[in-house]
């Protein structure tokens, strides 16, 4: 059961490297705090999932690297090769000479169609190497031009070509105070397009990860490497194998699996009038929570608090909204570790902020000529705004 990763743009490729490195390091960790047999099963599962084997035994990441200019890919390839422990496939990259210029329209409307065949062929080759495909993991940022625009295009193509496979997009939410001036435009265009073609959007905010580095890890001079490594660590703790239904030694669960997504009741959502008076508005309202426990005492962990109805929207029973995955095998030498993946209102505020800023800029028509130059018209912007306002409204309504 394998996952094919697509790394897009500078951000996607820089993060992708750290993710594979973290996965590899963890799986080869001798101190798994479990039996040898357990460790071997875990290792084998991780290996099959993320790496393929080469003749001389060096694992090759199941990844396709895409960027519209060569500097970052070259760096990524050499970093991996230098480590000597794993590497990227020789022919797994697609590169051009001139980037997307932070222009979503250029990434989506120019690079996309131009390189569609080459990129999809590369992905197809990677898919063929898998015995069975779990799905795709696409790493991209929202703020730039390649990750965002070309990423949206590629995801759409994956939806068309592999409609039965799961697609999860790892989205990097830019710092609130500018990395790129047109980041809000690029973000809303990305999100609105991904909403139509992706199965799940896993979000990491640069601001949030930055805070982790500063406050929890006390790093003085935080670099993007630090940020990416924290991110990779988090992703590793989600993606590494966990027991499937059969229990220990059986690692067949699909980490991209949609058993943490929830469908609204067939009878329709309740009208706003009904408000549970018992609810104290302490928590973000969730529609799904997934807890992943690794290491010592996982079977005796007390998870009752996660089943509190106050956490969830009124039309959901906690038992349908909450899942837990476990393994006794420790992650990255941590005796006990836990990860939480949540589909909740946490994103409402950041999303609302981005939509607001983009709307403000759109009203003045600033920078629009850069997009219309490549075929993204004002209507496309309006469509994106409409879709995202609906998303915000839907999430807000969960609180009732």
């Amino acid at each position, binding site marked *: 059961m394998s996952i094919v990763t697509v790394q897009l743009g*500078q951000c996607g490729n820089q993060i992708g490297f750290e993710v594979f490195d973290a996965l590899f390091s963890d799986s080869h960790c001798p101190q798994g705090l479990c039996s040898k047999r357990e460790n071997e099963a875990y290792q084998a599962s991780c290996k099959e999932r993320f790496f393929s084997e080469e003749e001389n035994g060096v694992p090759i990441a199941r990844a396709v690297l895409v960027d519209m200019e060569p500097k970052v890919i070259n760096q990524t390839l050499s970093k991996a090769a230098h480590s000597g422990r794993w590497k990227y496939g020789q022919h797994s990259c697609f590169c051009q*000479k001139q980037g997307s210029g932070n222009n979503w329209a250029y990434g989506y409307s120019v690079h996309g169609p131009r390189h569609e065949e080459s990129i999809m062929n590369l992905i197809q080759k990677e898919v063929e190497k898998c015995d069975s495909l779990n799905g795709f993991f696409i790493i991209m940022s929202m703020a730039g031009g390649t990750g965002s625009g070309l990423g949206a295009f590629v995801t759409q193509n994956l939806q068309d070509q592999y409609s039965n496979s799961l697609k999860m997009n790892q989205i990097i939410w830019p710092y609130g105070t500018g990395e*790129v*001036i047109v980041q809000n435009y690029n973000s809303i265009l990305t999100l609105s397009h991904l909403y139509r073609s992706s199965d799940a959007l896993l979000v990491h905010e640069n601001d949030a990860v930055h805070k982790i580095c500063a406050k929890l890890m006390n790093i*003085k001079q935080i*670099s993007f490497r630090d940020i990416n490594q924290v991110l990779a660590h988090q992703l590793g703790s989600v993606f590494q194998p966990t027991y499937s239904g059969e229990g220990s030694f059986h690692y067949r669960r699909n980490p991209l699996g949609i058993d943490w997504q929830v469908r609204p009741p067939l009878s329709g959502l309740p009208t706003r009038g009904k408000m549970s008076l018992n609810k104290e508005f302490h928590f973000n309202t969730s529609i799904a929570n997934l807890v992943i426990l690794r290491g010592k005492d996982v079977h005796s962990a007390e998870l009752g608090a996660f089943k509190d109805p106050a956490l969830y929207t009124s039309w959901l029973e906690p038992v349908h909204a909450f899942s837990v995955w476990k393994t006794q095998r420790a992650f990255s030498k941590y005796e006990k570790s836990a990860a939480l993946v949540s589909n909740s209102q946490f994103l409402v505020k950041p999303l609302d902020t981005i939509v607001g*800023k983009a709307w403000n800029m759109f009203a003045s028509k600033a*920078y629009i000529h850069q997009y219309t130059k490549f075929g993204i018209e004002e209507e496309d912007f309006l469509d994106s705004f409409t879709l995202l306002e609906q998303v915000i409204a839907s999430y807000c309504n969960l609180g009732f």
Partner: protein
Amino acid sequence: MTQSVVIQVGQCGNQIGCCFWDLALREHAAVNQKAIYDEAISSFFRNVDTRVVGDGGSISKGKICSLKARAVLIDMEEGVVNEILQGPLRDVFDSKQLITDISGSGNNWAVGHKVFGSLYQEQILEKLRKSAEHCDCLQCFFIIHSMGGGTGSGLGTFLLKVLEDEFPEVYRFVTSIYPSGEDDVITSPYNSMLAMKELNEHADCVLPIDNQSLFDIISKIDLMVNSGKLGTAIKPKSLVTSSAGAFKKRQEKPFDAMNNIVANLLLNLTSSARFEGSLNMDLNEISMNLVPFPQLHYLVSSLTPLYTLADVNIPSRRLDQMFSDAFSKDHQLIRADPKHSLYLACALMVRGNVQISDLRRNIERLKPSLRFVSWNQEGWKTSLCSVPPVGHSHSLLALANNTCVKPTFIELRERFTRLYRKRAHLHHYLQIEGMEESCFTEALSSLSALIQEYNQLDATKSMPAEELPRLSIAV
């Protein structure tokens, strides 16, 4: 990786260009210790096997054989170009990539633009096509010229239209030296005004620079060097004005110090496109992020640090000082006060051992004292390039699209009007075929329209930022 071609026009353009190539070689020599022709160097240089006669002989990989600048040198007088071709940099230039004449443009925009323009159009096209053919992926033309004279101003701006027609997909970045108030060329207001219209219409991005600001920077440095109060010596290579370590070891010419500043500007501008870093910024991103409306493409630049002290220890306080300096009047390459005007957008291009947290800390610190237009409150574009410039451990180039350019344009308009009202020297222009009074009036209205745009933006400065009503959705 993309390539850029530098087109240096006129006396000023060629003198600056010469300093640029000198410093570019110095920078690449410092980074590229093994003398391998890599992608970074290929952005500005070709690698040529000089044993091969004729046009072939381009080598794309391997050891450096002979580097040739991707440049076209244009001047309607022979003096400056000849000097370059006899100087220490003679081997860097391809002798076929020159266009010269003998008579000069007589400080007359019309002669440069109309007479020499039509005379040399074919040759110009041919040289440009040749340089484009030598490029794998040409991304940008850098035009260097002055506004006040005849060749740089007239022929330099004639070029822009040619480039736009012939290479519409390639960016046109223009580095323009604006005349200062005490300029000794009487007709410089006419030349500058006529050139402005061309810049308005055919340039993607303009970096206006004035001699006075460069001069002030030099005075400031001299003061520091000679004051001796710091006790420690300044690293010679780190002076933004020096060519220490470069080819031109001979005595520096009077304008060299000033030209080196401009040369350093261009090197820093392109550093993130040439070298690696954790947050790259390509040249096409400059235009995308800093030009919100096509006409408003004038960027105010400032460079820090101007020098590095010899002691190696750089506490973060000094790093923060670098950011503060970038926003001070003293470091701008054009007389302007961005802090008291309105920012439309700002780019910070950092080189060296600076991380994202340093960048963020300083943006947070400086933001409250800067005024950004209401629809771009977070209008920052940032880049981190790991390779520092020669002689420094880190540096910062700030490019601002700010209404503070307005006074320069208003002053230009005033000086123009004073001359034009009296119709002084007008006959020199009107006697040139293709020139009419309408050329002047059109140029004037083009500049006035531009000033008006800036005025409208400035008017919003004092208005409170209004929260526009969002789309309301029926759920």
